[in-house]
């Protein structure tokens, strides 16, 4: 009953999660803030749709092309902007995201601002789930490798990591390219879920929303990103009952959670089988202690 709707929300959450995972690597693990990831999504989305519609490629290879297209563009962008320090990089990405949208608005081949309808409906809950699982495994392995530790070092102290011999520029670049590829794939899935692409869908608001999800979930935590994407994508739907006040409550809910947990939902912790076991043991031992002391009072 109503599965279609719930699955639809989870599919959207999964699509958002794909970009958020990439962004988590860039922002959470490498310490670079981006406000232009909707631009990478747009590039990926349009490239994927181009492959399936005009060249009749199957879905998964087309998605790869979409991811690759976004990665290539990000490499060029990174080459020119990654030398910028701190906030300047953030502003450059912001400009990039808006530029992509405005260019697409005016390229009539893809329908311009009126959008591109008639994209085949390939994305469903199951392939989004599959792609996300693969993406999480790749990301988790990357972060636990030497490269991942180098990225974290760059995040923590750029100068010091340079002194110990880490090629800061290279790791920033890898991080940006991977995150753009993730965003590109997400854009492709989005286009084939909506069967419609419109530059309006990839506005600055979308980029900010994605960055908010990463911070909301907790910087430097993959499971935080997963939770963040699930919660923040479904929240507006849960709040439907409030009708026109919906977005006010959405904002309030986000503010409330950020105040009560400024480090984000997971705050750098990971939810893995072993950490869950530890958490369970902690709770149990505390309770048994409490029971024990209560008994002692008698």
């Amino acid at each position, binding site marked *: *009953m109503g599965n279609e*709707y719930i699955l639809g*929300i989870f599919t959207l959450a999964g699509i958002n999660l794909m970009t958020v995972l990439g962004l988590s690597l860039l922002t959470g693990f490498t310490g670079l803030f981006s406000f232009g990831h909707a631009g990478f999504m747009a590039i990926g989305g349009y490239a994927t749709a181009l492959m399936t519609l005009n060249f009749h490629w199957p879905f998964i290879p087309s998605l790869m092309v979409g991811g690759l297209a976004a990665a290539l563009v990000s490499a060029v962008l990174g080459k020119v902007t990654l030398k910028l320090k701190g906030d300047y990089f953030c502003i450059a990405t912001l400009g990039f995201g808006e530029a992509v949208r405005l260019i697409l*608005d005016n390229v009539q081949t893809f329908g311009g601002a*009126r959008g591109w309808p008639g994209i085949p409906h390939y994305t469903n809950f199951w392939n989004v789930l599959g792609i996300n699982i693969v993406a999480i495994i790749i990301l988790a392995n990357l972060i636990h490798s030497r490269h991942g530790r180098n990225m974290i070092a760059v995040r923590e102290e750029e100068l010091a990591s340079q002194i110990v011999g880490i090629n800061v520029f290279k790791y920033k670049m890898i991080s940006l390219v991977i995150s753009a590829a993730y965003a590109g794939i997400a854009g492709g899935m989005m286009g084939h879920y909506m069967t419609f692409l419109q*530059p309006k869908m990839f506005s600055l608001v979308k980029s900010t929303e994605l960055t908010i999800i990463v911070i909301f979930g907790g910087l430097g935590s993959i499971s935080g990103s997963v939770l963040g994407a699930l*919660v923040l994508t479904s929240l507006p*739907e*849960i709040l439907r009952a409030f009708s026109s006040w*919906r977005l006010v409550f959405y904002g309030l809910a986000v503010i409330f959670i950020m105040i009560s947990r400024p480090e984000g939902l997971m705050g750098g912790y990971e939810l893995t089988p072993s950490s869950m076991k530890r958490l369970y043991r902690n709770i149990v031992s505390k309770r048994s202690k409490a029971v024990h002391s209560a008994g002692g009072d008698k």
Partner: protein
Amino acid sequence: MKKKVLALLMVCMMIVSVGLAGCSSKTETAAPAETASPADETVKVGWMGSLTGDQAVWGQCELNTVKMLFEEINGKGGVLGKKLEVIGYDTKGDPQEAVNVAKRLTTQDKVCAILGPNASGNAIPIAPVLEEAKVPDIATVATNPKVTVLDGKVKPYNFRVCFIDPYQGAVAAGYAADILKAKSAAVLYDVGDDYSQGLTEFFEEFFVKKGGTIVAREGFKTGDVDFRPQLSKIKAANPEVIFMPYFFKEVALSANQARELGIDAILMGGDGWPSEQLISMAKDAVEGSFFVNHLDYEDPEVQDFKTRYKAKYGKDVELNGYLVHDAVLMFVDGMTRAGEANGEKIAQALETTDIKGITGRIKISKETHNPEGKDAAILKIVDGKYVFQQKFAAE
């Protein structure tokens, strides 16, 4: 530690409530008629549109109109002896939300038809959802041709009550060339807006066909408030008519600035113009301007509805109200002829709609699902009032 557990609990609760939200909550239901009828005798009809965001004024007016009309219909005994109930959801004008809403309406609330949305960008992506659920949708002011027809194939469950962009562009161009006898025109348009791009394209095409020349074509970006650079260029080109195919807020700003720069060309626009705000923001600047509209506000046909709406809500009806009024008429007619509240049957019945609405005769074409030969009204702004000029059909 405690904090962490708390946070985890909170997250779990939120995820669970997604599921719960699915099973419960019937928001925005119209107040049922005095006598509560058994559940099996109500027919649920969906509505979607912007209740938040920059087009909220129109969306709220649409939903209010639907609620009012359903109450009136229920008061008279309903349709086929059944009461109508509207379930309205906000899309914030976002295509993603529109897809969510369409899924929710068709699979959770099990509506038999959907009214709205008003934006073409929202009406296009919901087509596959409608086809899967076999529920028809009647869009209100979605004027992009691709809402109902894609690659020469009509979408079986998408309908609309308004005319389309090529027609509107042709009417504006035809009126400028034939009636205003303009030889040169300039276009100022919003490069980031689908509606604006569409109208610009068709206006230019038809104006040139009529033997006129486009002397300037300047774009701005959604959200811009300063149009002086573009207007200065337009002034240098010295057109007789300036076509402004965008929404009232920007129209008011750009019209004021054009007059400040000393441009005295006639301003023309489309159905994005009519709004009380346009007059209050730029009464003098838009004086003597013309625009294409779906109806004439002073038409005796619409007076009754106008007064009923004003009496109930204390506000004036916006343009969308009139169109959703006709969408309701079209739905009621379709359901009556279908004989039951079944989406598939209603869709079939809608294909042969031929009714008289307050915005004109609505005769749906089987090939395009658009109302055929609906005349556009040309309105002129005189002393801050919209004065009807004539019905104008483009060849």
